[in-house]
């Protein structure tokens, strides 16, 4: 085996996107994945390609990434299950309509196609929703896809561009010059991108003060096939508060129609849970919330439930960039609940950084230096 220029550790959607961008630039890329492509958090996600504006930086990365996905959408094969269904943010009360109007104006100013729905408009767009909701914000450009298939496709494209992937290979340590595998052997490379998801920080040569994240557990449930109950990804505006809060546990209405006639139901957020056990009481709280919004869900049968761990940083922005003090070592992780969306932007940013050129968006807000504790 000839030596790779770049080692990518982790074959989740973020590692896959990094591998593709780097391979396209002509680097000899090797991906090392402990399990199989997309087996980590990526396999558990909802696959909503979303634009959010919690902060400028978050908006830029999500919007840019969504544009990259939209440009790819026609190329993606059937198994990626791309659905340009759009999303509606639901206002339960009149007071939330101010938020709707503000965001509509803001998104429009960036050329994003949105629509303000009043109570009636919402009921027409989604007849299964309970009556008397205040309205909503329709995001026409949001899409939905099937994350593990998307990750596999990205890896396949990277392989087409000359990359290799080694699955079933577990990495113990990374450095700027290569990786030490669990079996004690080493793999040298020109540079290393650590995209090992919730495990990424554990692989660094030493803990970096100030650099940390907390796993944030999420539950999902899926129903049997049935008559279509909804037509857009649907989320309550309160979801944003749930995503935002530092509270220990929160649930919010967030559902997704699948093309199969199934409904994917989310979502919960719990900090500092490291186990992926389904917790019946949290699951039930989440389902109760969903039924409050779509009463007809009560009769649909739940066939499966699962959980995933989101790698969450304190400032809700990912960690993308060189690891201080270790030339040649890059980190690409910490995407919390947005990593399916922002994987493509992350891949571009990493490729730009490795090439030493500037990017379409300013990478500074995602770089690691922002978190570091000032030296005493």
């Amino acid at each position: 085996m000839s030596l790779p220029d770049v080692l990518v550790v982790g074959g989740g959607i973020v590692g896959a996107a990094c591998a593709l961008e780097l391979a396209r630039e002509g680097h000899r890329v090797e991906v090392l994945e402990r399990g199989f492509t997309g087996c980590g958090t990526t396999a558990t996600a909802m696959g909503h390609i979303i634009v959010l504006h919690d902060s400028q930086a978050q908006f830029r990365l999500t919007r840019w990434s969504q544009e990259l996905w939209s440009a790819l959408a026609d190329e993606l094969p059937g198994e990626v299950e791309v659905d340009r269904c759009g999303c509606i943010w639901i206002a339960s009360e009149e007071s939330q309509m101010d938020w709707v109007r503000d965001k509509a104006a803001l998104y429009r100013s960036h050329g994003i196609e949105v629509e303000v729905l009043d109570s009636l408009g919402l009921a027409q767009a989604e007849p299964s929703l309970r009556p008397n909701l205040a309205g909503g914000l329709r995001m026409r450009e949001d899409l939905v896809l099937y994350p593990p298939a998307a990750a596999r496709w990205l890896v396949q494209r990277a392989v087409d561009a000359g990359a290799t992937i080694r699955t079933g290979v577990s990495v113990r340590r990374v450095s700027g010059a290569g990786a030490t595998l669990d079996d004690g052997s080493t793999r040298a490379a020109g540079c290393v991108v650590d995209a090992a998801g919730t495990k990424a920080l554990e692989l660094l040569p030493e803990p970096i003060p100030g650099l940390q994240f907390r796993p944030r557990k999420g539950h999902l449930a899926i129903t049997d096939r049935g008559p279509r109950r909804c037509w857009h990804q649907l989320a309550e505006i309160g979801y944003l508060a749930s995503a935002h809060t530092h509270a220990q546990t929160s649930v919010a209405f967030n559902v997704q129609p699948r093309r199969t006639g199934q409904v994917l139901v989310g979502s919960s957020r719990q900090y500092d849970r490291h186990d992926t056990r389904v917790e019946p009481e949290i699951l039930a709280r989440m389902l109760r919330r969903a039924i409050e919004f779509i009463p007809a869900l009560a009769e649909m049968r739940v066939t499966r439930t699962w959980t995933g761990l989101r790698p969450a940083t304190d400032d809700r922005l990912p960690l993308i960039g060189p690891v201080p003090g270790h030339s040649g070592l890059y980190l690409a992780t910490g995407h919390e609940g947005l990593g399916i969306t922002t994987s493509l932007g992350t891949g571009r940013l990493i490729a730009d950084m490795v090439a030493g050129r500037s990017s379409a968006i300013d990478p500074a807000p995602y770089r690691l230096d922002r978190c570091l504790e000032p030296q005493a």
Partner: protein
Amino acid sequence: MREVASEVLILGAGPAGLAAAAAAAEAGARVDVIEGNRSPGGQIWRPEGATEAHPTTRRWQQRLLRTGVRVHLETTVVAADGPRCIYTVCGGEMSRFRTSRLVLATGSRELFLPFPGWTLPGVTGVGGLQALVKSGWPIEGKRVVVAGSGPLLLAVADSLRRRGAKLLLIAEQAPRRAVVRLARQLWRSPRKAIQALGLMARLVQVPMRYACWPLRATGDECVRSVLLQGSDGSIELECDALACGFGLVPEIAIAAYLGCDVECGAMSVDAQQQSSVPGVYGAGEITGVGGVELAVAEGAVAGTAAAGARVPVRWLARRDRQQAFVSHLDRAFALRPELRRLAAPETIVCRCEDVAFEALAGAESARAAKLATRCGMGSCQGRVCGPATRFLFGWHHDRVRPPFFPVPMAALAAIGTVQPSSANPACYQTFTMDC
């Protein structure tokens, strides 16, 4: 959500669960039994038609009635929060059972192996056809082929014969010498020997072939014929029904979910029938497939031990005697490797999600295959294709998660909501003498 407090909670009212319930209650424990079916009795003591309980079940019912065992019928275990908190659904209503000891007696289910045509209407499991017929499906005069492996083939063939089916062939995949070797062990269990001899005598008119297995079923709307591989070439038989079962696999989903050690597909238990998780016991086919006497013997031990009483040595000995037979059974009916090559590339393996054999070959694991092809993601949750892909590809089961069976969202959503316990007695059923 309804709350029920129990001392010994038994999941499954087949032979093992009934025996465990009686033993635990007679040892003084407060016992609840949960059973998904409308009637107790499990696989073997199924009621005839819609109402009449099997005579053996009725005898058990009377025994349970005397000791105040509460039996919750048409109640399905769907989730758990550790071994002391079991969630069930009955008629769409969620209940939470709190218990200090748990006995798992969930039995086994049939192993189906895919071959071209196995999804045609008219092709069923062996136990499946038996259950259909018992619930009133007309079999009289129908031409039936019974194929697969294990003692179940004979037991079912006999009961189909009694109901007037025209049995064309019993095809056992195991070689004759293996079965003869097993028969030589029968002296260890005189009851089994008598059963076996009786069966053979009653089936003497029915053609029987060893080292013979199905290759393909054909038909349009319904199965019309089956092609079988025999030791002297292949044979084609026209038929109206093909019952196919390649043995039984322990129903370990709940045990696995609770973290009990599982070995070779069966729940591991110690001499007291206790699993690796303290307070969780296993009895019957969940611990390995060995017939009804073993199930009853294990149930009695498990129930007594779970109630905290001393298990009579005699009972342990009875169980051990029966147990000795199990390894002989496994050896005699070991599946031949040819059965891994029955499926054609386009043969469906996962019926819920229409996943073909060719889509699965080459995947690293059950989970990888599931994420790539949806195999096992459907409403049966891999109960049918899971054991098959284990045999075909050596895959281990993906993790078990609640709900163990599809349930209405409203029922799952009720978990954790409190309701005055007197409010809804709807799902609480005790036996009555005439049920």
